[in-house]
Structure formats: structure tokens, C-alpha cells
């Protein structure tokens, strides 16, 4: 059972039954009250109190932040952190625009696209170092090589993140039918589509854990075709950066410490991730989260020996901009330095 289908079904019935505040569980009520405080209080919130929203439901993709919280790294850094996850149908961007979160994690393309749309957000840290997106096709199916992409049905996330794979296909002059999917891989498994964009750390393994062996799949990693656009990064509004720079720096440093810890203690980390997923009533498979943690840590380039580099190279920024603005005439994209405000962290 995939996450979105379940959420959608929840919604399908909850929608009909009318959501009543009195039926909220105590934790949700507390969360709601806190949200209200954030919205109303705004600038009254103490500088060391931060709200951080991930861009997806709880999973090992955010393990470093959980471990920083579990191990008290945020507290040590003098930060009162609230870590929230948006529901599957809500884009974390809206939390940022509505002031519900001080910091959000976003894909680089999503964030830059929002900036191009006029949202005044800036990047304070680029966490992932490489692209994790790939196309998969079943061996023996319609698509065997990249030349077969033309005329095929390609599943692509409805919720975004599709800019880079679409750009890659379009740049090759391939015409394909893009089929929006939520996050389930069932349509691919049932041969409703020929190809599907998947995350190496997530859906790829979900397909494997649905009984499809690796040798039964063709993979087309975007990074192999010149589209190595990294994903996860941390973003804040320009205003928050001005007002809470110190706290944001402390948060980022503590988060990195959390990631280092997660990299060094995978078993403990997976247990924490699974517990958080259960609390959020999100299906949680140990094997899947173990895979995800391993791949995320690989992608983020955490090494015990050296400090992690959280800066975004300018050429990657430029390339991302070209993908989002293939025709720059008439538009005025932000300068690299206006968008990328990498925090300088105290070195170890």
C-alpha cells in the first residue's frame, strides 16, 4: 500500500464526513494551536524558536533532522525546534509563504521555480550533492533504450519534481505522453505506463520490494545524461534570513551533526525513523527505510572525515536555471548570489 493512495482514501472519507475539531486527537489539537500561534504571533516568536517543515511525510529522507532532535543537538545549539511534515497533498512551499514554517526543505528545482514565480525565498544549504532521479522501464517491455522513449507513456509525479526529467526528455526532442501519478508504483507494476520517473532512494526500491528484480529493470539515471541536478536543500524567506540568521546557522550546524550521527548509527536511526512513521500513521517498512537511509547518506556525501559541503556550485545553479527557463528572453532570473545564501558554519 503506497502512502498517497492511503492518504487519498483517508481524504475521500474524511472529506465527506466533515472534519470536526472536537474529533481531533490531542496531539493534532496541540499542533493546530501551535500553528495558530505561529500565524498570529509571527514576529513575536523568540529568535531561537524555529519551525522546520520537511517537504514530505516522515521517512528516512529526513533522518538527520530526527536524530539531531532525538540527540538534543538543536537544544544544545540553543534552538527550540518544531519539526513538522506537510500532508501529502500540501506543498511545503505554502508553509513558507504562509509563514507556517521558518525553514523548509525543498528540491532545488522546486525552490528555484517558486523564486521565479516571485516567492522571496533563498537557499541556506544545499544538502544533496547529486540527482537521485531515474527512469525505470521493464525489460522486455516497450522501452529498452533511451531511443524508445518517443511515443511512450511516462509516469511522472503530479506533485512536482518533474521539471528535470521532463527537461531531459524534451532536450532530446522526444515526444512522450506524460502521465501524472501520485507516488504509487502500481500503475508501473500493472503496465499502465511504459516508463516511470522514480527516486533512487524511494520508488526504485518500492518497485524492488513489490517483487520486481533489479535485473528485470532498465534504469536511466538523469545524472548519466548530463542532468545531475541535486535535490534536497534548506530554504527560508529572505526576511527570516535577515532576522534569524544566527538561529538558522545554529539550526543548520545542528542538522549536519544529526546527519553525521545518522550516518554513523544507521540501526538506531532506522528505529527512530520507523517510530516517527508509525506515530504519523504512515506505512513503514524497515527494509525500505534502511535502503533509503543508505542512499540518502550517499547522495548527501556525508563522510566521517571531512566537513560536509553545503554550498551549491554556480554552474549547477545556472544549469537548473536553464532547465526552468529554456527561453530566458523577457525574464529576469535572480542572480546566483541573490538566491544562494549558503550559511557559513563554524568549522569543526
Amino acid at each position, binding site marked *: 500500500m503506497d502512502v498517497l493512495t492511503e492518504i487519498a482514501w483517508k481524504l475521500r472519507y474524511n472529506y465527506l464526513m466533515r472534519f470536526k475539531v472536537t474529533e481531533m486527537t490531542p496531539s493534532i489539537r496541540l499542533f493546530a494551536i501551535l500553528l495558530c500561534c505561529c500565524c498570529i504571533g509571527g514576529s513575536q516568536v523568540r529568535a531561537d524558536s524555529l519551525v522546520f517543515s520537511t517537504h514530505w511525510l516522515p521517512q528516512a529522507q529526513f533522518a538527520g533532522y530526527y536524530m539531531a532532535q532525538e540527540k538534543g543537538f538543536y537544544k544544545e545549539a540553543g534552538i527550540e525546534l518544531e519539526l513538522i511534515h506537510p500532508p501529502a497533498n500540501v506543498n511545503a512551499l505554502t508553509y513558507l509563504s504562509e509563514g507556517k514554517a521558518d525553514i523548509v526543505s525543498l528540491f532545488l528545482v522546486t525552490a528555484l521555480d517558486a523564486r521565479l514565480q516571485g516567492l522571496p525565498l533563498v537557499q541556506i544549504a544545499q544538502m544533496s550533492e547529486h540527482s537521485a532521479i531515474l527512469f525505470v522501464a521493464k525489460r522486455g517491455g516497450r522501452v529498452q533504450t533511451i531511443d524508445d522513449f518517443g511515443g511512450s507513456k511516462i509516469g511522472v509525479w503530479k506533485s512536482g519534481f518533474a521539471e528535470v526529467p521532463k527537461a531531459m526528455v524534451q532536450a532530446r526532442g522526444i515526444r512522450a505522453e506524460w502521465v501524472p501519478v501520485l507516488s504509487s508504483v502500481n500503475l508501473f507494476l500493472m503496465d499502465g505506463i511504459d516508463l516511470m520517473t522514480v527516486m533512487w532512494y524511494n520508488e526504485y526500491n518500492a518497485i524492488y*520490494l513489490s517483487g520486481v528484480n533489479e535485473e528485470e529493470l532498465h534504469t536511466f539515471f538523469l545524472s548519466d545524461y548530463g542532468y545531475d541536478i541535486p535535490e534536497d536543500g534548506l530554504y527560508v524567506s529572505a526576511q527570516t534570513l535577515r532576522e534569524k540568521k544566527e538561529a538558522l546557522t545554529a539550526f543548520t550546524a545542528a542538522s549536519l551533526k544529526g546527519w553525521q550521527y545518522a550516518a554513523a548509527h544507521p540501526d538506531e536511526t532506522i528505529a527512530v525513523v520507523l517510530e516517527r512513521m508509525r506515530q504519523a500513521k504512515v*506505512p513503514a517498512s524497515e527494509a525500505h527505510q534502511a535502503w533509503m537511509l543508505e542512499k540518502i547518506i550517499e547522495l548527501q556525501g556525508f563522510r566521517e572525515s571531512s566537513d560536509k559541503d553545503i554550498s551549491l556550485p554556480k554552474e549547477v545553479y545556472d544549469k537548473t536555471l536553464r532547465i526552468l527557463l529554456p527561453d530566458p528572453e523577457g525574464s529576469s532570473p535572480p542572480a546566483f548570489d541573490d538566491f544562494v545564501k549558503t550559511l557559513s558554519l563554524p568549522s569543526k
Partner: protein
Amino acid sequence: MLHKNTLSFRIVTRVLGITALLFVLTISGYYYYTRQLIRQAARENAIQLAGNIAGKVAQQLQPMEKIPQMVSASLEMGFFQPDSLKSITKKILQENPAIFGAGVAFEPNILPGRGRFFMPFAFRVGDNIQTAYLGGLDYEYFLMDWYQIPALTGQAYWSEPYFDEGGGNALMITYAVPFYLPNDTGRQLGGVATVDVNLEWLTNIVSEVKIFESGYAFVLSRNGMALTHPDKAMIMNESIFSNAENWNEPLLREIGRDLQQGNSQFRAYNLKDRGQRWIYYQPLPSGNLSLAVVYPDAEMFAPLKRVNTLLVFLILLGLLVMIIGVHNMVSRTARPLVHIAQSAREIASGNFQTPLPDIRSKDELLQLRNAFEYMQQQLELYIARITETTAAKEKIESELRIAREIQMSMIPHSFPPFPDLPQIDLYAVLESAKEVGGDLYDFFQLGEDKFCFAIGDVSGKGVPASLFMAVTRTLLRSIADKYPRPAAIMSELNKSLSLNNDSCMFVTFFLGILDLKTGELAYSNAGHNPPLIITQSGTVSFFPKATAIPLGLMEDFVYPESILTMQDGDKIFAYTDGVSEAENAKQELFGEEAIMSLVQKSTTGDPRQLIQTVKKALEKHVEDFEQSDDITMLSVLYDRRSK
């Protein structure tokens, strides 16, 4: 009580060994075959159980498939109008209590004036049925698997099961059938008709299944997801494929894939720390579900192990009882043997009247007892006879002792014999091999100037020889008185001995008569070993060999006579063949050469010293070997100078 050296110990250990071996073989065989049977039974049970559940699934889910198929067909044929669908779906729920929700989802914008979303839907809220139109930006139903998959594949689709919180947190499954509507060019996808079915009944049936201690059944979705599981944390979280990774058991993945192929099989797999498990799996006839029945190998045999433990305990108890029983029986049987053994000891110590134990059984023991009794009687008789014989023998021996004394008293044995005859020194010994013997020596004075000495050896030994010797000795004394010359004495003696000598006994005899004044020695030898003459100057020589036959053989034989003159200091050494033919253990004779060399070495000593020297050498030669013949030696020294 069970000593190692008892009969019962030996019997008990052997019987115990054999019995225990038989038991071990029997139990092992029994255990092995029972295990096979149990395994077979468990297998059949699992298959039957899965069959039952499959039957129920077919009964419950297959009719569900008909409803959206029918709705779909009716829409395609124009029997249903979109506006009527709300009441139709409500009617479906009213008619089918097993259906939780039913709906018809149309393609975006396909119905004029209905906008992007149109999905009439009926669903249950408690006991009531409510209807609504679903769809909106919050709920873009055409992105859902249940819509998208049948829409894109053109095939009816059983969704992956899901938990529905609105529906009471029950496990639900949706069956969706695409339908097509006519358009300008032909027909196009119109949408998807669905029913939502609660799977609680299935999870209930399956959850109740308990096989042995911890065996269970569980339902899997097409993707291998656990829909039921005794470990609640597994349900809708882990799949057979993720558990293959979690538990590092690739066989589970193989099983999952085999199930996706629609196969059913019975297999074993191993889980670390959990041991071997058996799994039977088969696809269920509807809903794209599969059923697996799992049970641990070890638990399957738990009752058997309990029975075996009891059995082993009983057998051990039985063996103990058997040991005690056999021991008692054998001890009781063998107890008379102990008594017989005691009696035998008593008998051996001479108590022949010792009573033997009473034996009532008529078996070998009785035979043994009777044999013992017979032996006891025979021993008693034998001992009585022996006592008698011994007494008789002792009498004979005592008589022989007396005879010996008499015989010994017949020969002179005081040395020096003639203190009045200083010219003569003489020493002699006679040692009979038996109580009485046939050797003899004698010496006596004949008149004023003559000295007679003789040595002889009677043929044979013992009493006859001693009697013959006595006769010879007596005759010698009486004849010597009448005849002065040795040849005459010998002839007379021969004549007398030959007379009535029916037993053909004879005697070798050497007789010498020494003239004490002149030293002239007249002698006659009747078949006797030639004596030695030792001159004063130290030369030693044998007398000439006897040419005459022993006495007692031929009555008329005329014995010759020789003469030899002894000088002062000359010695004569005479002996019987008991000396020269004395044997040692190696059957080596002492020999005349030994006598000669001995005598040569001791020419200077007196007769006593000479005889003692020869005797010592003889004893040394013979050592402990039994003396077989009489030993007689006689030595005479003639020396007129001695005063």
C-alpha cells in the same frame, strides 16, 4: 547389592544392553515414521485450511466483481443515466451488505456541464447509507490507482488493499471496471465503476487460524504486502519482499515472486534464531490476494516429543524394574550355588559330612548338587582307601628302615677298624640309593698276618638286592675262614650263590687278601670295576680289567687269582659303578677318567681324605639329581712303617 563379579551382574548387564538397544531401535523407528506422518498430516492440514479460506474468498469476492461489471455494461449500453447513478449506487449498497461503497467515476470533462469532476458515490456511515459527489482539487480521483490502472490498462482491477479510517479503520479493497462511451470517432474511455469491499471478515478468519504453538496464516496482496499477520506491526507495513531483506532470507522473495506467478507450493525456509519453518502458499481466487500458512518445524513435533519423553521415562522405569527383577531372580537361583561353593570349601578342608543345600527345582542346579553329593561320597571312600594304603606303606617303610639298619650293621663301619694293625689304614662308605641296597664291602683279619677286604655290587636294587648282598656277605665270612686264597674263596662263594639262584641275580665282586708282612696282595675280580692302586711315589693305575664273570651266574666257573706286591704307603681305591656311573641332570656320567684324575690329585692323603675328596666331587657333579644307584667306596693304605 550388584557386585561386578556376580552372575546376576553379568546377566543384568547383558540383558540390559540388549533390551536397551532394542528399545533405542524401536523408539528411533517409531520416532522417524511418526515424524513423517505428522509432517504429512500438517501438510494436508495446511492445504485443506488454505482451500477452505480460498473457498470463502471465492464465495464472498467473486460476486462483487459482477456489480461494477454490470454497472459498466449498463453505462456503455446507455441503460443508466449519470443523474440516476447516485440512487443506483445507493441501491447497490442496500442490496449488498458486503459492499461498503460503490461509485462511478467519470473521465474529466466528459459529461457536458458536469465540470472536471463527476463521481456519484454511495457509502455507509454506521448503519446508514449516504451519497455524495466526489472529486475536486483536493481529491483528483483520476490520479488514484483504482481509477488510473483500469483506465490505462483497459482491464478490471482489484486494488491493493488499504486501511480506511473513515470506514472504521477496516481493511478495504476496491474493484474497478473501466467503461467506454461513444464519441464522434467511435468510443472513448468514459470512466471507472467501483465497489469498495470490507475485508474484515477475511482478516478475521485468517487471524483466527492457529497452527501448533506459533504457526499462523496470513494474507498477502499482489505486491506481497502483509494484510494480516500475528505481528500487528507487519500489517500494511512490511511485505514478503521487505521481510526477505529484514530477515535476510532470499527464499521469501522467491516465494513472493512465485505467488505473483499464481503458483502454489509447499516449502521450507530458515529464519535466523527462529529455526526452520514450513510455508504453504497459494493464490486466492479473487481480489489478487494470496494466502500463506506458516508453521515452525520444531513445534510440529512438540506433542511427539512429549509422548517420547513419557515413553523414554516409562522405558527407563521398565528397565529399572527389569534390572531389579532379573537381579532378584538370578540371585535366588544362584544362591544354592554359593552354598554349594561354601560346602565345597568345607569338603576340601576335609569335612566330608558337610551338608549340601536342598534344591527343590529339577534343573541343572539339582544335577550339580547331586554331582557334588556323589563326589562327596566318592571322596570319602577314596580318602578311606588312601588312609589304609598309607598305613600299609608306612609299615613297609618302617620295616625297610629296620632292614637297612640290619644291613648296615652287617658291614663294618668303625674307622680306623683295627687299632692293633698299624700297617693298615682303611676307610669305606656305602650310601644306598633306596632304603636298602645291593652294594657291599667288607674287611676282616684272616689269621695273624692276612687281611681280607672285598667290595661288591649286586645286580638290581632294593630288597632283593639287599637280601642277595646279605647272603653274599654272610657266605664270604664263613667261606673265607676255610679257604685262604682269593680264587678259592671266589669259586666257593660263586658255587654257593649260584645254587638255587632262580631269580638269576649276580654280584660283581672284588676280593683281596693282603699279606701284612710282605705286602703281597692276592686278589680276584669277578666282573667288578677295577680298583686303583696308588703307590707311595704318587703313580696311580687301574688294576687289570676283570676277566672273570660276576658271582652267581655259573656254578662251576673257576675264578683266577692275581698277585701284586704293595709297598709301604701304597693305597688301593675300590668303588662300585654307583660312583663311575653317577648321573647328573644332564645325564652325564661321572666317569672313570674323573675318578682317576681326582685320585691323582690326592695321592698324599689318607684313605678317609681320599674318599671324602671323591665324595665331594661326586656330590658336586650330581648336584640335586636323584641318586639312582648305591654308592660304595673303599680305600686301604698299607704301611708297615706306621707304628
